[in-house]
């Protein structure tokens, strides 16, 4: 029987963790529970559900700062920011549909714990770059805080960085403070059609090496572009390379023009305006083109996320060329490859993918797979022995009895 605890205050969280510690009975920490399919499943019969620890506690638009309880819905935060023409610049993806769940249930805590980021990562950074401070309960059953609420702070170690991407294995965050930024007035996307992967990566590099401040650079091969919900993209009949320009109105227009002139040698270009541009980047952000959208269709494929030096993106995927039933697309100017592969022969696929990535300096994360595959393939790219030893001691420093999400990152 699973006991699901639903604390509504930081004190409740403390009590739950202390009891878990006293009983040495591990807790599975969940926010919206949308990303439980990521990493090893946690073996515990107690769930600490933070979704009722909710609410924005501080928002000062002029100071670019927002604090909220960890279980606050991301959707609520985004709506509040939008009212003030602000945003979370790291563009957190909606990941629930990746695991077959409904959109809209992600919590802020989950986004931070997984260090998520969308296409704007290349310009604005990931969740880690916007995470200013927190309050948490460690696996030692102690409430503590780190960081602060101001933009610049080097007082003590940067524990927010350490917690960001720790998948709930070090501490249970109860309060989170973030840096927020003004939302762009306008966004447009320049499209180039028909490039192969290698040529597309060159085009993206040319765009990113220009002063035109590109805030998204993605390439969808033909089969993937055909799955886009944006009419112009799915009807193109070609691979689509997309470059986003955001900012103040006149600036966006000028930069789009300059970018199109710069990229002339790659072929003719088109422009997507606000609505279509927004829809396309949401799809790219949320891995929508690689998700099954109907019964039978590519269902059961494993989903990988490869992070590589951007100039190596195209080369890294050629390693997969001989395998059938794979699809991929690029984001982050080639530095991020989303790859869907058949769920069969997972071990072999894993060594192929991780081998190709390791050669070029980077890492491959298994984002979604069948339960059987998740048991045999570690979701996270293996690290060096020295680094693994640090990680183990770090876990011990925060959670010596291993009561918080044990095994999740193994």
């Amino acid at each position, binding site marked *: 029987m699973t006991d*699901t*605890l639903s604390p509504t205050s930081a004190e409740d969280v403390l*009590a*739950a963790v*202390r009891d878990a*510690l*006293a009983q040495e009975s591990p807790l599975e920490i969940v926010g919206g529970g949308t990303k439980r399919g990521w990493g090893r499943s946690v073996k515990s019969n107690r769930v600490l*559900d933070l979704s009722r620890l909710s609410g924005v506690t501080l928002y000062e638009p*002029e*100071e*670019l700062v927002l604090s909220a309880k960890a279980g606050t819905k991301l959707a609520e935060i985004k709506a509040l920011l939008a009212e003030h023409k602000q945003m979370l610049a790291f563009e957190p993806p909606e990941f629930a549909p990746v695991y077959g769940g409904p959109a809209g249930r992600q919590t802020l805590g989950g986004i931070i714990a997984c*260090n998520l*980021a969308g296409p704007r990562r*290349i310009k604005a*950074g*990931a969740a*880690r*770059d916007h995470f200013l401070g927190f309050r948490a309960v460690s696996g*030692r*059953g*102690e409430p*503590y805080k*780190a960081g602060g*609420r*101001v*933009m*610049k*702070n*080097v*007082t*003590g*170690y*940067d*524990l927010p*960085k*350490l917690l960001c991407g*720790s998948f709930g294995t*070090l501490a249970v965050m109860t309060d989170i403070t973030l840096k927020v930024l*003004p*939302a762009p007035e306008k966004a447009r996307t320049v499209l180039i059609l028909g490039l192969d992967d290698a040529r597309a990566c060159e085009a993206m590099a040319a765009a*990113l*090496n220009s*002063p035109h401040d590109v805030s998204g650079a993605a390439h969808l091969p033909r089969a993937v572009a055909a799955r886009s919900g944006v009419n112009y993209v799915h009807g193109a009949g070609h691979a689509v390379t997309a470059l986003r320009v955001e900012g*103040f109105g006149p*600036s966006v227009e*000028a*930069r789009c023009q300059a970018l199109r002139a710069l990229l002339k040698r790659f072929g003719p270009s088109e422009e997507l305006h606000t609505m279509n541009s927004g829809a396309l980047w949401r799809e790219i952000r949320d891995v929508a083109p690689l998700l099954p959208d109907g019964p039978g269709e590519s269902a059961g494929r494993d989903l990988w996320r490869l*992070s590589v030096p951007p100039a190596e993106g195209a080369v890294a995927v050629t390693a997969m060329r001989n395998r059938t039933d794979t699809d991929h697309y690029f984001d982050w100017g080639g*530095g*991020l490859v989303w790859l869907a592969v058949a769920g069969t022969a997972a071990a072999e696929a894993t060594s192929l993918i991780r081998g190709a990535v390791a050669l070029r*300096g980077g*890492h491959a994360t298994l984002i979604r797979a069948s339960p059987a595959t998740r048991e045999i393939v570690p979701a996270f790219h293996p*690290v*060096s022995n*020295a680094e693994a030893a*640090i990680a183990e*001691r770090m876990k*011990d*420093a925060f959670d010596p*009895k291993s009561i918080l999400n044990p095994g999740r990152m193994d």
Partner: protein
Amino acid sequence: MRMPAPDERVLARRAEIAAALRAIVPGEGVIDTEEGRRPFECDGLTAYRQLPMLVVLPETTAQVSEILKYCKREGIKVVPRGAGTSLSGGALPLADGVLLGVAKFNRILEIDYANRCAVVQPGVTNLAITQAVEHEGFYYAPDPSSQIACTIGGNVAENSGGVHCLKYGLTANNVLGVELVMMDGAIIRLGGKHLDAPGYDLLGLVIGSEGMLGVVTEVTVRLLKKPATARAVLLGFPSNEAAGDTVGAIIAAGVIPGGMEMMDKPAIHAAEDFIHAGYPRDVEALLIVELDGPAVEVDDLVARVEAIARGKGATVVQVSQSDEERLRFWAGRKAAFPAVGRISPDYYCMDGTIPRRRLPEVLTKTAALSAKYGLRVANVFHAGDGNLHPLILYDANNPGELERAEAFGAEILKLCVEVGGVLTGEHGVGVEKRDLMPAMFDEVDLAQQERVKCVFDPDSLLNPGKVFPTLHRCAELGRVHVHGGQTRFADLPRF
């Protein structure tokens, strides 16, 4: 300043230790004469001085690893050092410690435009990176005022910032990877040319860790393309409030300037006397707002900023008409520290960050403290991100004046914490703010940070005596207290 008591047994073995280090770093890499060690006795916080037992200047990562392995085995403390410009005493030597300088690690190893990054050794200066790539139109964004001298390794250790950090981020947001040698000699690589490495974000943790977790032997930095144009607007105001309000209004209008700096009257006068940048002398506060991007954008934003400033009562509004003029506007601000250095025998630079809207209150209270301590103060301010640099003027030759300056500074920093800010925005805790840490963190907070230190350096041999007000043994910190009988647990809401 209380530092860990020197270990007599180590001091007694000085000659033997020098010989052992010479076996690792041959030639002139080990310095043991007093005159040779003298230049290393302090960093930018010159009030604290201590001759190191020995200085070693390795040239390879393998040597660094051997040195640390040896020192760990023999229980010898090590203090890493870059250019020694730290303003918090982060590189202050220890009497029984080896000072490990990275000055000889001064090569740029690779410039990779295709991946928009450069791989450099830690002793390369901040400015040298930009100089190596600017002919291609690239630059390295964080630009501390000390950029001619300070090293990228020191920047990593302090998570240094600069006037362009509001828009482009601090060191932490611009470093992609490091090679790190830990106290046990193990060499690890964190990050690389790709983003967001697997596992815990140890790269993020190491940046800003003040040389206490490992010695950085290589750094991969992100390169950015220079914006097409940049213009600066010089704004003068009759009050600090009006200047502060203008900053808030600019950000509320959705504008994040490339840089937004504020100076108060004493700072304006000192800078103007020194640099002749053309600053108005009859204003209470000066703002320099830099807008960068394509020309159409910059023109548009300059107009918006001008309108906002006039609406808030700016009495001086000057827009740079050439790059020379823009640089002249900046020259005064960038030389503010030395400018203040000219009007006082000594100055003491503080570095708190506050929620920006509390600025008028903090400045008023600082002025009151200035009267109380009988010491003048000039304020420069990274206004966009709330990072305040009060410069306290004093004369160390007057008995008691240094102590007064320190007490004054401590009160300012506590005030910063009281209004919701922090002790240090970019200069680090070091020895200087070590004993103030309890103003911001309780014992549990600090113990958790110390446990992180123990993960990397369980014997506390690497740069000990910095950051933490009290040193605990790692074994003692490891103990778990189980809080039994949680009655509250039974009452928790369940589904």
